[in-house]
């Protein structure tokens, strides 16, 4: 194996892959430098900030294009098709064939290692955590400059976090490494979310507060990141249910309602949640009316529509009566 690895490392393809990665990193850094300089000019702060933000959003979308296999396209396509249908043994054989082929190009090998890791991780009846971890660790150690390295770290974290239980330090180490080493990677958002989640599972105040702080910091740095709505949702839950700090909960609840969760069946529930926090918990009935109105107008067939309409009518009558006095 080592001989094989050494052989393709020396091959031109590996060099090309590394050079391409380096070019991308240079482009990224030059752009950031330009943004920083721009923000230094008079009145350029906003421009620089905006440009940096635009860059960041583009970076998320463009700096990490999907990886294309170069040689083993068919085998990898077949492997993922088998993986999709949960025919994991078949998928694993195909991924292994690519990984063990002579001089696999880096993108093909990385893809195969990812596939092998997941096949082991979701093996039935029990996952093969160690086997899966070996494949992801290979990506982290052998291709640290690859865009897949932070994703592999997140997968390593996922492998070592046992859902629903406290004491998940092993998993958290990997999420932290992803955040520290690759803060601008698209995988960093998931790393932050997973790290906070594992801290919430500790169920004790210092850890839960630390989890909330991680999400808040991440949202300050990347307010429009692709997982922002989920991060606001977790903070909404934490400040509402656990802390019962409704003033802290409200901005996150409103963000979730505005950004909207993907499932349209949840929209009316979130509007209701915001309206009830305003009316019942914070005593701001007049502001709540807007959210009840949104249920009636935007989700007229939802389970909350009837009661929202009734409360809205009562609130309007109340406001009208106060105006009359």
């Amino acid at each position, binding site marked *: 194996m080592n001989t094989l690895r050494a052989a393709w490392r020396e091959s031109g393809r590996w060099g090309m892959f590394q050079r391409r990665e380096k070019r991308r990193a240079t482009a990224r850094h030059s752009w950031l430098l330009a943004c920083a300089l721009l923000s230094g000019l008079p009145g350029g702060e906003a421009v620089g900030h905006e440009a940096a933000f635009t860059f960041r959003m583009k970076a998320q979308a463009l700096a990490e294009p999907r990886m294309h296999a170069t040689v083993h396209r068919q085998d990898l396509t077949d492997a993922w098709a088998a993986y999709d249908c949960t025919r994991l043994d078949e998928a694993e054989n195909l991924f292994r064939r690519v990984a063990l082929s002579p001089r696999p190009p880096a993108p093909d090998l990385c893809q195969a290692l990812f596939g092998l890791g997941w096949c082991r991780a979701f093996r039935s009846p029990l996952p093969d955590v160690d086997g899966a971890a070996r494949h992801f660790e290979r990506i982290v150690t052998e291709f640290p400059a690859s865009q897949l390295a932070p994703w592999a770290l997140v997968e390593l974290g996922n492998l070592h976090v046992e859902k629903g239980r406290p004491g998940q330090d092993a998993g958290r180490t990997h999420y932290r490494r992803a955040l520290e080493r690759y803060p601008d990677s698209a995988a960093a958002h998931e790393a932050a979310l997973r790290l906070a989640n594992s801290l919430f599972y500790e169920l004790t105040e210092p850890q839960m507060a630390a989890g909330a702080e991680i999400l808040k910091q991440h949202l300050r740095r990347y307010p429009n990141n692709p997982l922002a709505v989920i991060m606001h949702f977790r903070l909404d*839950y934490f400040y509402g249910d656990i802390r019962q700090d409704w003033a802290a909960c409200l901005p996150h609840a409103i963000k979730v309602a505005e950004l909207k969760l993907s499932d349209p069946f949840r929209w009316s529930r979130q509007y209701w949640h915001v309206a009830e926090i305003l009316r019942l918990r914070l005593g701001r009935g007049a502001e709540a009316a807007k959210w009840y109105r949104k249920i009636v107008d935007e989700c007229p067939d939802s389970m909350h529509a009837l009661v929202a309409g009734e409360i809205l009518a009562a609130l309007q009558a109340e406001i009208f009566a106060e105006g009359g006095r």
Partner: protein
Amino acid sequence: MRPADDNRAGVLRWRMRAAFAVAAGITLGLFFRRAETDAASAGPVAASGGRTILRVAHSYNDPHVAKAFAALAAAYSRRHPGVEVKVEAMPLRVYRQWIRTQLIGGTPPDLVEPLGTGGVWEEIAVQYLHPLTAAVLEPNPYNEGTPLAQQAWKQTYLDKMAGGYFLHLMEFYAASLNLNNQRIFYNKKMFRAVQGSDDPPRDFRAWLELGARLREWAGRDGKVVAPLAVARDDLLSTPGTNRTGLFTRYFRSLTGGMMAPYDVQAWGAPDPTLLFWGLTNGSFDLKDPRIRAATGAVQRIADICQAGFSSDLPENKRFLFLQQKAAMVLGDTRDFGIYQATAGFEVGVFDFPQIARNDPEWGRYYAGPLWEGEGCAGLLLAIPRDSLQRERALDFLQFATSVRQNAAFCAELSWFPAIRDAETSADLAVFRPQTRGTINAPELVSPNSSTEVYFRRNLPLFLLRQLPFDEFMDGLAQEWRARGWADLDRMLNTRIRGHRNTEFNVGRAKARLLFAEAGNQGREFVDHDRTPYQLGLEIVDLLDSSIVRRKYVQPNLKRGDYRFPPAVAGERRDPTWP
């Protein structure tokens, strides 16, 4: 050997040869028949004349359904002359096994009927069904020239295609042809004999009074006529397991809003944990007057049901009605066509009577009707991955659920159409789902738990007045207190185990995000730039939040360290409130 013996042996040999020839003939016949069947089941069969055969299988073993499918198939063949649609129906019990064998064996029909969207059907879907998600986000081409032409296929559904969405798999796998909602069918002749008109009762109390008069009327003539025929599960299904059952329907109507003080996060969604939390800190009373009134209302319905309803199956109630031994029967849209075609008497149908706000006994507790906005999808059809003509199957499915064809198909069967704007007869308007409903009613039991077992065992005794209300509720409270923690822990562990499936799907979506060979990234689900990867993480986090919440609140509540907020900001708590 004697000549007679010789003769007999000859006859015997002849008979054996004849028998052998017949057996060989049958075997050959069966072989060729089998070969023909196998060929038909192998997918895109070029039948005589090069026609493509599309096979559809479902469990509605009813000649009316067969007729409606034949008309639909003929309409499709007229539009696509090279295609023949063959529809196979089989009894539900047979279908369940048969379809799984076909799917596992890799020889399924081109369209199959999934019998659910959760549990085992989730496993089947991920392995054997073809996701429709990409297609449901595009307009249905067969809606061309109608007001729905520009709308995504899923938006053309009354329920936004919720019936075909597999939540944990994050994919649409099926499309429904109709919506099913329960209503009450009645014998118009009997109504006229008793009340002089065939008008349905105006409210809940009038319905009960009519039931009593029907019983009295039948008794006068010595007939055995039950005012209302129901099946065991219509009344006894526990809240949560059969959302549209009679018990849930009237219980929620009369207890809506009761759980609001415990709904700390204000979601308004049904949740048995809230009731348990109320019982844990001693602030919720199962013998609350509203619960007494609600269960009492259901008890009054039981009074007008047929004798032995607590063990009757759906077939029993249908026979009673068709034999005119029941004046009313609980049924859904599927029954409408059956009764119209076979009853031999005039059949009417009405919606569940609501409780009048001025009713002296129940009016003050009435919070609204039951919300029927989801969970009423009827006949679902999905495309197996192993179908060799998936595109043709999808095309047929879109044809069947286009506004015109769906209206024609459902009109043939007197079913309520699944598609918006599909015309229905005035008779069917009563089946339109009730989307104005109450929320925050208590969930008396936790699904699949010891509280549910207790409830199912004792509800018939309560309804038949063999178990007083106080005893019934004391027993339930005891059950919650004795086993509630263990039940809820089990529920949480099930949810945690369920994470594995969701994480697998996040992995699949992530693979598409990172690698071109893993397939298309998937279209956005809503009008945002969301990918299946983001949706998957949303589901993971929704599950995680819910688990963390329960794991945090429960022990703290038990220790007295967690308190529910006041009902209204600034309000001082009742001193008895914990």
